[in-house]
C-alpha cells in the first residue's frame, strides 16, 4: 500500500477528538425543529463510506473481495444518495415564513 498520508497514533487520536467535538458543537445548539433533518443530514454525511468501499473494490484481487466490495459500494452509494434526497426534501419545507405568507395572500 502506497499512501502519502500516515494518520496513525496520536495524529489519528487528535483527528478523532477534534472531529468528535465538532459534531458535539454542531448539534448542541440546534433547535428541536431541526432534529430530524439534521439526523438525516448526518446520515447523509456518513455516506462518505462509499469512498472507502470504492478503494476496497478497486484493490480487490479475488472474486470474494470483488463481491464484497461491490456490495459495499452499492450500499454506500445508497446511503449517500438516499440520505441526500431525503434531507433535501425535508429542508425544502423550511422556507422563510414571510415569503410563504406573500404566496398565501396571492392564492387568497
Amino acid at each position, binding site marked *: 500500500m502506497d499512501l502519502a498520508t500516515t494518520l496513525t497514533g496520536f495524529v489519528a487520536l487528535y483527528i*478523532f477528538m477534534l472531529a468528535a467535538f465538532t459534531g458535539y458543537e454542531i448539534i448542541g445548539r440546534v*433547535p428541536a425543529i431541526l432534529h430530524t433533518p439534521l439526523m438525516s443530514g448526518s*446520515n447523509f454525511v456518513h455516506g*462518505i*463510506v462509499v469512498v472507502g468501499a*470504492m478503494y476496497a473494490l478497486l484493490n480487490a*484481487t479475488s472474486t470474494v473481495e470483488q463481491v464484497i466490495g461491490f456490495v459495499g459500494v452499492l450500499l454506500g452509494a*445508497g446511503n449517500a444518495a438516499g440520505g*441526500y434526497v431525503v434531507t433535501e426534501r425535508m429542508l425544502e419545507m423550511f422556507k422563510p415564513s414571510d415569503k410563504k405568507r406573500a404566496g398565501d395572500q396571492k392564492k387568497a
Partner: protein
Amino acid sequence: MNLTPQFIIDASYFAAAFLFIYGLKRMSSPVTARSGIVVAGAGMLVAVLASFLYYFGVNDAALPHLSTNVVLALTALVIGTGWAWWSGKRVAMTAMPQMVALYNGMGGGAAAAIAAVELLRTNAVHQTIPLMLAIAGALIGSVSLSGSLIAWAKLDGRINGVWRMSGQQIFNGIVFLATLGVGIYIVFVAHGHAHPGVVAAFFIGALIFGVLMTMPIGGADMPVVISLYNAFTGLAVGFEGYVLQNPALMIAGMVVGSAGTLLTLLMAKAMNRSVSNVIFSNFGDAGGESQGEIKGSQKPAEAGDAAINMRYASKVIIAPGYGLAVAQAQHKLYEFVKLLTDAGVEVKFAIHPVAGRMPGHMNVLLAEAGVPYDMIYDLEDINGEFKEADVAIVIGANDTVNPAARTNKSSPIYGMPILNVDQAKQVYVVKRGQGKGYSGVENELFFADNCNLVYGDAQKVMVAMIQAVKSLEGGGH
C-alpha cells in the same frame, strides 16, 4: 509539490471534510438549512469523483483485475445511487423516519464490507491497532445494518408488535460475548489471518445480535434507536477510515458519531428515558394493572360545535400528533387555521419534542402543509401559555398530553414532559376511537371536566370544521 493523483485525492478529501462540517453547520439553523445540504452534497461529489483516481495507485496484485473492478464500481455506484434516489423521491413525508433507518443501515453495511475485505486479505501483514479498529467497525457496522433493517421493517409496518422471550437479555449477552470473543481471536490470536469461516461466523454473530437487540424494542422508542444506529454507523465509518488511512472517512465518521450520540441523548431526554432504558427494558411493561381507577366519563362533541367555539375564541393552541399525519390532515388543518386567523383568532402550534415519530418530525410535516415556522412553538416556549388559551385542540396525540406523566408515579410515562393542554379553558381531542396511546397507557385527560372528544378520522373532522366556520360566515351576510 507535484500534482500527482494522490495529491489530488488528498486535496479533495480535505475539501470534502470542510464542506461536510460547513454544510452541517448551515443545516443547524432554519434560515440557512436548505443551503447546508447542498454544500455537504458538493463535498460528497468531490470526494467520490476524486476516488476514481485510486485507479492510478492500486496494489500490484490488483492490476490484472483493475478493468473488471472499475466496471464493478461504476455499476454499483449507478445502481445504488439510482435506486436510492428513486426511492427517496417517492417516499411519503410520513415515512421519512424509516427511510432514514434504511439508508443508515446501508451505510453500516458498507463499513462492515470494508472491514470484511480487509479481514479476508490473509496474505497481507496486519498490525494490531488497525486490526482492532477494523473489527470494532465491523461489529458496530453490522449491528447497525441488521438493527436498522429491523427498525425500518417495524416502522414500515412489515413486522408488527414486539418479540420477546424469557431470559432474552441473557441470551443477547451470550451472543454478544461470543461474537466479541471471535473478534478478539481474529485480532490477537490469528493476527488477521483467521480462516474465512471464522471471519464469516464473526459477521453472522454481529448481524444476529443487531436483530436480537432491536426486536424487543417497542415502536415508541424506535426514533431513539434509529438515532443510536446513526451514531453507530458514523463510528464504524470513522474506524474503517483509520484502517484505510482515509481522513475524509475518519473526520466525517467521527463528526456523525458524536453528533448522533448527542442527538440520541437529547431524544431520550425528551421522552424522559435513558438510552439504556430504551435498549434494555420495554415500554408499556410496567403499569397496566397498577393504574388507579379514572373517575369521570368521556364526553363526545360535534366537530362543528368545536369549530364554532374556536372561531369565537381569542386564543387557540393546537397540539398535533402522529395521528394527524397518518390521516394526512395537516393541509386541511392549516386551511382551518387560516380561517381562524382571518377571523382574528390567535393560533399557535405546540410541538412536543417527540410528536410524530422523531424530534422535529412534526415540524417537517406541518411545514410541508405550508404552516410558517414562526407559528410553531416548542414545549418549553408554549407550556406557560395554555393557562391563557380559550381552547386547546389535540389532534392525533395521546401520550404527549397525558397528565398522568405529571401526577401518577406508577405510570410508565411518569416524569415525561407533557404539553399542559389540560390547563386551557376548553380542550378538544380529535381521536379515531377510544383506544389508548402508543405506550398503552389510559389517558385521564379524556375524562376531565373541561375536555370533549371529537371522534372521527382527523381529515374528515377538519373538513367538517372548515365547513362549519365557512357556513357561519356565509350566514352572516
